[in-house]
């Protein structure tokens, strides 16, 4: 059983192993001769899931956001990423960013020896602010050998963003535009409604809105993904790539979403303990309608729906052609349904209790 720990609890060795696995995945070609890496394929997946088309649906579907499938889709996505990291460094697991421990965790996470600095946006021409590239730490564009730590993988260059996965672009007249355009960006934003405190999170993981005629999971998802100091706010807080669909370019994405997943797992266990039933009872069934529209969630979001892109061979779908070329082929794998990911221990991991 893999144990996911708070980033505050990692030993030096665990932190180095995690970083090494990230750097190795980022510097391993997706296939021989590919100009993108195994890591980049995960970023491409996150971009592609935003707009999935099925022959039967007129409008494209976001298979992983803005509705209840946000939780299960990211759970599967993170677990696959964790297993990919373990291919690089056996035994490594995803740490989580415990939002409520703000002072300690911001100090622990965001420096050159771990997840890189929280660079503030830079001001251009005295009027406009733009996200700034990371120019130090392990996630800079090029790591000078003289500064590489002992654990730095041989042949690893640095953290480079392939063009289809970029979201910030500097004009060619700008100094070092080529490097800046291929580099991880952040634009840390002060003054947001952040962080949540322990009481906010305790309320969230115990939330049980009943008697409305709609399934109670909808209200939990609503607050977790869209709340004023929850998932979306942290994306806005870090800024740069983290505030775009290409957010997994920034490795802090994984720690952030591990915490999202942890909060869902905690909510699941509290629901069963406090209100009975099993994991299936605490997720909307086919036919349960959204409280704001009385309409069903999009395809891929219900218990028995297949989650894109883990559709097996039977289902056809389409995504943006340019991104599609970067995606792994899952057609030979068994399809994955929402119900398959409700139990984290069945997936092979759990969270360390504080």
């Amino acid at each position: 059983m893999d144990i996911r720990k708070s980033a505050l609890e990692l030993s030096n060795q665990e932190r180095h192993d995690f970083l090494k696995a990230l750097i190795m995945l980022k510097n391993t070609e997706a296939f021989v001769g590919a100009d993108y890496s195994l890591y980049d394929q995960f970023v491409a997946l996150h971009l592609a899931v935003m707009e999935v088309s099925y022959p039967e649906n007129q409008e494209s579907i976001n298979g992983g956001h803005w509705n209840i499938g946000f939780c299960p889709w990211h759970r599967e996505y993170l677990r696959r990423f964790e297993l990919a990291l373990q291919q690089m460094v056996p035994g490594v697991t995803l740490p989580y960013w415990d939002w409520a421990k703000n002072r300690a965790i911001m100090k622990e996470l965001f420096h050159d020896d771990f997840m890189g600095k929280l660079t503030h946006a830079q001001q251009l021409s005295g009027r406009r602010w733009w996200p700034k590239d990371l120019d130090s730490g392990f996630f800079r564009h090029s790591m000078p050998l003289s500064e590489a730590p002992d654990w730095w993988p041989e042949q690893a260059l640095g953290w480079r963003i392939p063009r289809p996965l970029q979201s910030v672009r500097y004009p060619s007249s700008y100094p070092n535009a080529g490097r800046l355009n291929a580099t991880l960006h952040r634009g840390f934003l002060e003054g947001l409604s952040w962080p949540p405190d322990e009481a906010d999170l305790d309320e969230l993981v115990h939330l049980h809105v009943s008697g409305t005629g709609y399934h109670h999971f909808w209200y939990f998802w609503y607050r977790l993904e869209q709340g004023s100091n929850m998932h979306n706010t942290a994306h806005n807080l870090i800024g740069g790539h983290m505030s775009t669909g290409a957010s997994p370019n920034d490795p802090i994405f994984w720690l952030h979403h591990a915490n999202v997943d942890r909060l869902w797992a905690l909510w699941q266990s509290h629901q069963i303990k406090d209100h009975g039933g099993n994991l299936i009872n605490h997720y909307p069934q086919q036919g349960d309608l959204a409280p704001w529209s009385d309409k069903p969630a999009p395809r891929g979001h219900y218990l028995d729906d297949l989650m894109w892109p883990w559709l097996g061979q039977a289902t056809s779908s389409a995504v943006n052609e340019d991104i599609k070329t970067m995606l792994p082929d899952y057609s030979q794998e068994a399809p994955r349904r929402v119900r398959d990911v409700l139990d984290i221990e069945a997936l092979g991991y759990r969270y360390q209790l504080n």
Partner: protein
Amino acid sequence: MALPSIANLEACNDELLATCDELTRAEIEAHLKLLEEKYQSLKLAEGKEKIAALIASWQDHLKQPEKLILLAKGGPSFVNLRVKVPQLRLVINGPGMLFESFKLISSLSSEMGFNLKNLAALADSFRVSVLCAHGGRQNIEAKVESDRTGGYLSLSCGPMSMYQSEMLLSSKSGESFEELLERHLFARLDEADKQVAVVGFSLVGESHHHGGMEMVWIASEELQPERHHLSHHESQQEAVGEPHGHS
């Protein structure tokens, strides 16, 4: 007089932070002024970042009382402006994608005082800014406009994002929004008629599910920040850094 070193400033900052609950607003403002002077005098980015972080931590202590409203899929799209605080914080999910714009509406007729002159005076009485990771803190103009149904005040959402931004509506005078409304719109009205709200309008006529590749930020001194509705195919065809217009 020479300004203190960063190390001294940090030590002084820690001491002040330990007693910040006892400090007056004037004392906090004086400390902030010192930090800002230091920030201006520094050239090294690293030092500036440290000072910026200190400034931000102190700005928190000068925050105005505010009311926070979450605008989201399945959340409210109606914000009551008649509140007893000088600042409203609208947490907007999917700005430019879920929500397209905001409009001030009321239960008042022009005869009751809802006219363009009063609306313009109201618009001039508060500031609007957006906190968005794509562009930091940006000021938003509260536009007074009219259509065939009458006048209204509109606010754009700021930069597009699939995640979130925060819009701050802040009274310039420190008066509450209720007091501003009383002065500019409600002077001659009965209590029952005093209804004013900001309403969010959702994006229509376009899929709201996307969120990946359609937005590319172009850093340019000449251009305003643009929201580019580019398909990935279109964005691939553009040369890096070429100036863009609206697509």
